[in-house]
């Protein structure tokens, strides 16, 4: 039986197309980037308000509000980071 190289290459191209991941590359990572940006924005706002409070431009309530918001953001980020690192270490400990 004789194989047709043309058909083979066509099949190969089809297989390549099927195996190719479709849609935007890993929506998970962009979600993480969004979270990180959100976190950075909260931290920046907290810092700006703290400085404004020290120079007398913002009242105590605004400062407390912003600091609590950044405290919550840090706690969330640290907890998630710890979880991710833990999961990574778990993979490293896996016997191959």
């Amino acid at each position, binding site marked *: 039986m004789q194989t047709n190289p043309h058909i083979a290459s066509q099949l190969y191209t089809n297989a390549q197309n099927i195996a190719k991941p479709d849609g935007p590359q890993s929506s998970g990572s962009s979600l993480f980037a969004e979270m990180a940006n959100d976190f950075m924005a909260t931290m920046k706002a907290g810092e700006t308000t703290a400085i404004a409070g020290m120079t007398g431009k913002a009242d105590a*309530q605004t400062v407390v509000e912003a600091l*609590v918001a950044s405290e*919550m953001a840090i*706690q*969330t980020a640290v*907890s998630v980071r710890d979880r991710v690192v833990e999961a990574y270490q778990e993979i490293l400990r896996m016997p191959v």
Partner: protein
Amino acid sequence: MSDLSNSRMISASGMAAQAARLRLVSENIANADTPGFRAKSVSFQAVSDFMADAGSVRTGRVELSTAELPQIYDPGHPLADENGYYEGANVDLMVQIADAREAQRSYEANLKMFDQARQMKSSILELLKR
């Protein structure tokens, strides 16, 4: 925005509203002896659901008391008329003190809610750390 951070934002708006109320009480008490001064008060309004900060409170317009100004007899006063009377301020100190105390209690209540929302968020994150 999660419900807990919304709760913190709403409590903070309540605290700001009570602070504005206390400021007006201070103005009233400071001007309790100013001739012709009318006591100020402010109404609170709920923010409608279409706004970004839905559910929070904001202060409305400042209103002047329409109570009659007391006629004070003091012929030596520069503002006194020919009969020796001048118009004083219609600030009732008892009412102002009660208003200030109520503002303080409401502020504390809002602060408690703020702290409670913070603690709830903290405790849920504590669960994630285990």
